[in-house]
């Protein structure tokens, strides 16, 4: 499964939900076929995707999805412990793991030899692993509907889709669209029960 195949599935399942997506080729490939105000692509800030998504999910009472990459997660790896600690029931993290920093000249990431899903499991996180679009759809549909935080580990092929244009939007405009899109959504309880 290529990254863009995985993104098509995730975008379809979380079509009306807040979706925070990591920078580089991942954000560009998603934007190449789907532009939604509910998307919050981080155009830089590598390593911050799960943290931003955690904040979004803690603030809302609706399903929230984060799409991160192995390289980005490794850059801010301490967030995995924070995700495990707070584990918002409305949050799904989809980790697109190709074992490389595909946006950094296809350089290998440490995930080439490490089991990030195993690390998440070791922290007590519910992990579902998948390798093809059918498995991914089943996993993210279940994760979206479940009452617990789910980490979906998605094995994707190395490399990037050819011919994808750069994503050159003004981040303030992207942020404004996103803020407006969530304005009517149910807020999380002020202090969780």
């Amino acid at each position, binding site marked *: 499964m290529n990254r863009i195949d995985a993104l098509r599935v995730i975008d379809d399942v979380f079509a009306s939900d*807040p979706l*925070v997506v990591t920078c580089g080729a991942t954000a560009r490939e998603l934007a190449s076929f789907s532009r939604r105000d509910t998307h*919050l692509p*981080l*155009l*830089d*800030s590598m*390593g*911050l*995707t*799960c*943290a*931003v*998504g*955690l*904040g*979004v*999910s*803690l*603030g*809302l009472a609706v399903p929230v999805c984060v799409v991160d990459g192995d390289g980005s997660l490794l850059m*801010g790896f*301490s*967030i995995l*412990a*924070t995700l495990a*600690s*707070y584990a918002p029931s409305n949050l799904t993290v989809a980790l697109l793991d190709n074992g490389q920093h595909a946006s950094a000249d296809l350089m290998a990431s440490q995930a080439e030899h490490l089991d990030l899903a195993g690390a998440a499991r070791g922290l007590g996180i519910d992990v579902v692993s998948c390798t093809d679009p059918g498995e991914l759809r089943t996993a993210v549909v279940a994760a979206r509907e479940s009452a617990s935080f789910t980490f979906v580990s998605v094995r994707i092929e190395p490399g990037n889709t050819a011919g994808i244009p750069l994503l050159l939007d003004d*981040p*303030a405009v*992207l*942020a*404004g669209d*996103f*803020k407006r899109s*969530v*304005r009517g*959504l149910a*807020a*999380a309880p*002020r*202090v*969780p029960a």
Partner: protein
Amino acid sequence: MKESNQFFDAVVQGLIDWDIEVLVYVPSSHSAPVIRSLKAHGVRAVMANREEEAVGIAGGLAMVGRRAAIVMQDNGFGNAITALATFAVQYHAPIPIFANGRGGPGEYNAMIHSVSEAVPDLLRAVGIRVERLGVSDDADVWRQTVAATSRLAEMQHRPIVTIFEALHPSLATSR
């Protein structure tokens, strides 16, 4: 366990005046009384392991309309600067940040001043407003400033940093 004083109480009261919904914090022995007191007041608290994590979490909360503030130490801005510049500033995330200062009078760490002294200039260089609260300010000024800078962050749709003294010997007793 570090005891509170009228200045730390003023930070807490200022944040309550602002109607803070979520506290995102990085553990600090010097800000501990503020963090503990906010929790005791029933404020939802989220602990981050690193300062850039805190910026991401608080920024995500702010993006969906929650009033979230960060409490941390000023030496942590070395970790957080890229997240602040490329996310919080660029995506217009209104995050009031309150950081206890290190490296000044009362400091016991030999090297922490080497980052803390550079922090205000570093933050201003990436377009972040910096306010300061010190021992010459009355506790009521601390409270008013904390609430006002929090509201200002909302008005400006930007992070704003307030650095407050926490180590000066005169803060150990009430004035």
